[in-house]
């Protein structure tokens, strides 16, 4: 294998590692919610185009609807907050970016009238980077 081959191999390994790192971050957040007793469901992949072309998953945490999207960088995630707010609908909700991940929470079933669960979900999310 020549020098060029080594470079290509290195790039491929790096790309694979980055992909795993994305998944690992999402998994770490879900695990942290689980550990905090917030009972997250499985987060299923969805089309991320409506969320400013993020890589998105959706599910629920503690009875709150959750959409978690990953972006290429922190700026893109921050910009996507505005779009995230429009997806909340007729409910109490939050769109919040931390690093490359943007989280949309919506209490569409009125599980959390005083916002304590939403606040806990956000705190765990902020602490898990």
């Amino acid at each position, binding site marked *: 294998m020549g020098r060029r081959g080594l470079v290509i191999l290195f790039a491929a390994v790096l790309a694979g590692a980055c992909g795993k790192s994305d998944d690992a971050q999402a998994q770490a957040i879900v695990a942290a919610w689980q550990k905090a007793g917030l009972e997250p469901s499985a987060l299923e992949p969805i089309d991320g185009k409506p969320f400013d072309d993020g890589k998105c998953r959706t599910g629920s945490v503690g009875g709150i609807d959750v959409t978690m999207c990953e972006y290429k960088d922190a700026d893109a995630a921050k910009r996507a907050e505005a779009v995230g*707010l*429009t997806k*909340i609908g*007729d*409910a*109490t*909700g*939050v769109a*919040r970016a931390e690093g490359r991940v943007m989280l949309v929470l919506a209490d569409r079933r009125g599980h959390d*009238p*005083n*916002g*304590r669960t*939403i*606040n806990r979900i*956000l705190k765990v999310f902020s602490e898990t980077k």
Partner: protein
Amino acid sequence: MKRTLLLLAIASFFVAARADAKHFRFQGMHPIPESQGGGFCYIETPHVHIYEPARPDVLYRNEPDGYAFVGDPVPYGYDGPKYSYYGHHPIYVYGDAEEYCYLDGPHYHWFAPPPQARYRLKGGVYFYTGPFPSVYVEAKPRYTRINTVYRPLRYSRPVVIEAPPPEYTGPVFVEDRPTVVVPSGPPMVHAGVQAGFSVQIGTPPPPAVIVHEERPVYVQERPVIVRERPVIVREREVYVKHDRGKHRGWKKWEDED
């Protein structure tokens, strides 16, 4: 066809406006209006609700991230960590915005002042000892109306057992019920009854006690020296002026204003 397109455009504009208008942004924790079940919202970061805040004119400041609650959270059922303050002071919790709290006397907030701010902690109560800039003075007529919202609320306010420190230049809280006016010559007369009664000292004689409420006042013989700064010696219990179950809601405050 052109007309149809125009109608569609107008209709889509109204749908979009409604979509924008159905959320109200809040910057942090805040009371939940009675019309929405009451209580307190504990979301500490910017978030949205489908309802408007109650009394946004005095209980909130309009910040870029939404309505920022500046009142005492305790009477609305807040049960988290809290800090005691006395009188008016700056609020630092909402970023760089220069905002002030205009609540008279002892009250709570969920935030402590930052270490570099000019406060004196005395008897577990924060007294602001810094200057009040023109922005505070200019907004004072508007925002001191917050006290008309809090005065009728019945809840346990912080216990203040020590007089404000000399550096404190803000207004001093005077218990306002029942009012006893004692015109007198030397500044040493007092019609003390129960701790917490308001006493105003007039200048000239004749010595007389004027009671401005119909409630009986029991005058003790023991003279009490009146200082320049009245001191609150016990927890203040404020009694609600009931509307005999009519519950006129927020409208009554608007009427009073």
